[in-house]
């Protein structure tokens, strides 16, 4: 899997986004940094043109708060949690591209949050253990049929017309 790293400043932006999108729960669970890393991992799966678009969106989110005097010259990553929440809420409510931007960012952050093992555990979702159990169960109960089918898959068809094979032989 490709490694993808955001610029340090944008890593801070994403870290600031995590509690906004996923509530203070993320901070309480101590997983903000890991969720932010998960966002980078997810962005690493995307094609370059989308990555560039998202980077542009993150820069926009980071610096737009500077234009609001109530933010006292702070960018998004340096806002207080309340101000960050307010800025995000405002963008979410506005129609058009600002909504699309924060919606996309919300998608990445919420995805990474729910991919985190601690969050999965919190909501009672433990697929790995279940998968291991299913794997074992299938082999134990059906190993003979499985082996037969694997054999069938590579067995030449005795009645099938094979014009090229025949022509060459």
């Amino acid at each position, binding site marked *: 899997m490709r490694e993808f790293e955001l610029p340090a400043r944008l890593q801070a932006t994403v870290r600031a986004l995590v509690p906004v999108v996923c509530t203070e729960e993320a901070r309480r669970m101590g997983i903000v940094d890991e969720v932010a890393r998960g966002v980078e991992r*997810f962005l690493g799966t995307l094609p370059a043109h989308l990555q560039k678009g998202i980077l542009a969106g993150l820069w926009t989110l980071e610096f737009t708060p500077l234009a609001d005097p109530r933010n006292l010259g702070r960018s998004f990553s340096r806002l207080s949690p309340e101000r960050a929440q307010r800025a995000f809420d405002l963008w979410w409510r506005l129609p058009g591209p600002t909504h699309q931007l924060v919606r996309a960012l919300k*998608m990445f952050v919420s*995805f990474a949050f*729910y991919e985190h093992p601690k969050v999965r555990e919190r909501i009672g979702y433990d*697929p790995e253990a279940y*998968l291991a159990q299913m*794997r074992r169960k299938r082999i134990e109960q*059906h190993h003979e049929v499985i082996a037969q089918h694997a054999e069938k898959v590579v067995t030449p068809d005795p009645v099938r017309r094979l014009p090229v094979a025949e022509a060459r032989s």
Partner: protein
Amino acid sequence: MSPHNVYSRADWPQIPGVRTRRRRFQGDLYELSCDVVVVGSGAGGAVIAAELAEGGLDVVVLEEGGYYATEDFNADVTEALANLYRDGGAQMALGTPPVTFAEGRCVGGSTVINGGMTWRTPEHVIRRWREDHGVHDFDAHALLPHFERVEGFLSAKTQDPESIGRDNALLKEGADALGYETVSNIRNQLHCPGSNNCAFGCPTGAKQSTLLTYLPRALHFGARILTHCRVDGILRQRKQVQGVEGSLADPSGKTRRFRVHAKETVIACGAVQSPNLLLRAGLRSPSGKIGHGLTLHPNTKVVALFDEDVEGWKGVHQAYQVREFEGDGFVMAAVNIPPSLVAMTLPYYGRDMIELLDQYNQTVIGGVLIEDTTTGRVRSVAGLPVTTYQITEEDRHRIVRGTAILCEVLFAAGAKRIVLPFAGVPDLLSMADVQRLRETDVPKAAMEVVTVHIMGTLAMGDDPTRHVCDSYGRVYDYAGLTVADASLFPTPIGVNPMETIMTLATRCAIHLLDRFAVPAGV
């Protein structure tokens, strides 16, 4: 699948028959010759490769993605998106609304990441293709042996009852309560225990994707599979196609060029990449229809909350389909997805999202699949495919109606709240609210539409002025070039397309074998 004969980008110097041509400025060029080169290893490519290899031809399969075996699959969605999906599953057809679609990019292609539904082409579709598009030898009788052959390798059957999870049972209960017809899904599975990880690679080996069936068969009969090969050109002398060329993407960033020379070239990289390859290679069709006719079965999902524990992730993906409204152009199913993907698509964040997903184990994810009435297009811009698709008013109504009926089914099964895929439309809390949804004029822009069925951009038929390919996938006006994937569909089919793709690929293979058997000039 034994990795024998599966070669990654580092193995090229060891591949039997490979020549290395030294080039002063552009780096070494790898060259390989064979009878047939197949681009793509999914439902179309794997099947045609196996059939041709069994027929005695020297077959090389080129796959852009990597090779991952059953043991590599797990519940790490990010890893699956990176390894198994093209562009992390985030491709988009531009339009209002944009339609997000996913394609496989790994050995086995989309069969590794699909839900495993194995349906024969519906009778009315077979008739339409034969009568409206002149597809030769195309009736239920002629297709039967192909269907049976495909189903035999795929072990297509209904699920073992114990593998059916509570989410599917609830959907069926709701449909039964309303008197709607449901069918048990036929799936390509061998004693699937219901691990519900189909979309991220089957970790139990139960899903009989081409990774476990047709590709091992192809290898058994001598085919070679080369991974990480991005094909970007078609070698040809005027209208005689002579193979393909492309690059090997090295993880370190270094790329090498390769050429595979072949008597026949088979393009099977899906209904977006296949037309893109033909267009970027400068091929022209007498019909002018390369890339036209895209259909994609738009679908939407709802999240229904129940009081009881459902644990939809324990049990098979889509055990049933509600087929009552197939004639009206839509079918419905329970389609559990991991919480990370549910969270992504929810119209909520913060406290609302957390509270909802705290009840993930009490949710049923329901999906509606629409048989579309319009077509989109794939263009090639700077070598990349650009897909456009505009949902029609008729399909917009179908989506709303289908979603409303799905909600009725889920309320009949006991749902207490349903989150809709329509921005700005409040959640439904009771059956009475469904009527409100029916009366709501949901704008297209508010719809969250996704798909995994991309079809029909190199349509087959008997008329070179309307179709790009003939009845057996041969591209009109070019020699040595065949298409064998969902691009061939002249219309959407209304059901999951995997078996139809495989059946068409089987026909194409038989036709190609017949042509190879006849000495040239006779």
